[in-house]
């Protein structure tokens, strides 16, 4: 118990002095996302693998507090780097649809990341409804039916045909770091002659996260 208190006091002195802060440590040139108190660890290597380990991160795990300070400690690690998502437009419009005429509207999504494990871009949320979702891989109004779907193109495109717009749909991915990797999203719609008239709209959230 004394040891835990000692570690907590050291933490308070080193990390949270001179005043309590909720922010990470930073200076003009550096930013510390997450700090830890270790007493060991080394870099080990073999022919095929490298290992960077640490010892002691769990020692001060838990909450400690006094009148002026509060520590929320625990083992943590972070992969520093950035991921950027750039959409060429925040909306697309099909305009007024004519029966049996395919209409497309597209935008370009650009991803940058220095993640060694790459990235995945997908749809994380969809609300609202549009025409009937394509089920046969091609938005072409075959059988005089209405269809609505999404195609993707680009080096990282996840599929080659037209698919239904839905949550968890993977649009593009890469297993390594990428620079200005562009994927074109092509929304396609075609209405039938008996499609109910009205205004249709959808809200779609495009998300990118590292693998």
């Amino acid at each position, binding site marked *: 118990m004394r040891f835990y208190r000692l570690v907590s006091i050291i933490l308070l002195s080193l990390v949270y002095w001179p005043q309590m802060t909720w922010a990470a440590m930073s200076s003009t040139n550096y930013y510390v996302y997450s700090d830890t108190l270790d007493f060991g660890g080394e870099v080990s290597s073999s022919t095929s693998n490298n290992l960077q380990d640490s010892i002691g991160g769990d020692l001060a795990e838990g909450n400690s507090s006094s009148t002026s300070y509060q520590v929320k400690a625990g083992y943590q690690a972070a992969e520093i780097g950035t991921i950027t998502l750039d959409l060429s437009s925040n909306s*697309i419009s099909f305009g007024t649809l004519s029966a049996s005429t395919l209409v497309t509207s597209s935008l370009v999504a650009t991803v940058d990341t220095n993640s060694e494990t790459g990235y995945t871009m997908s749809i994380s949320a969809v609300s609202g409804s549009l025409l009937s979702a394509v089920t046969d891989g091609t938005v072409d109004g075959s059988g005089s039916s209405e269809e609505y779907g999404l195609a993707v193109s680009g080096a990282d495109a996840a599929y080659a045909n037209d698919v239904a717009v839905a949550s968890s749909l993977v649009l593009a991915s890469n297993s390594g770091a990428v620079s200005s990797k562009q994927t074109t999203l092509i929304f396609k719609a075609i*209405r039938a002659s008996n499609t109910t008239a009205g205004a249709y709209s959808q809200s779609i959230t495009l998300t990118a996260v590292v693998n």
Partner: protein
Amino acid sequence: MLKKKNLFILIIGYLFIGSSALAFSISPLKYSAVMSPNSSKDWEVKITNNSNQASNFTSKVFGLKQDQQGRSVLEKNIDIAENWFKFPLNNITILPGETKTAIFNVEVPPNTPPGDHYLGLTIEEQGEGALLAQLATALKLQIAGEAREKLVIENFSLNRKIFLIKNG
């Protein structure tokens, strides 16, 4: 004015005004941590507005899963830990070129069993259009505790006959 029987049926899809680009970045890419039940912690995600206009950003937490190809996919309501988070700064306005920090506060409930939780700390750019851009910092949250592994043989069978030889 418009009736179903009209020859020209107007179907208007995706009518949203505005087409300004969305562009932002976040850091770090991943967090990994061990926490105990009944403890709390803050996670920070830095947001940089790369567009040429001020933007509003909100923070949410999604579950994070991998598909069969090992790709990371965010999805709501797939991990109970999504409900443990609070957002002290849930609506942040960031000027062009500016960087601000979003805070995700997690409170692990008491009596939470040990195990791993995979989450996405997401930053979503709020726009006027129907397309929203979202980025996520991956978080592997391990709840500490005594792991009790149970292994039960439910069935055992052999295709070959076994002969037992009694000596003596």
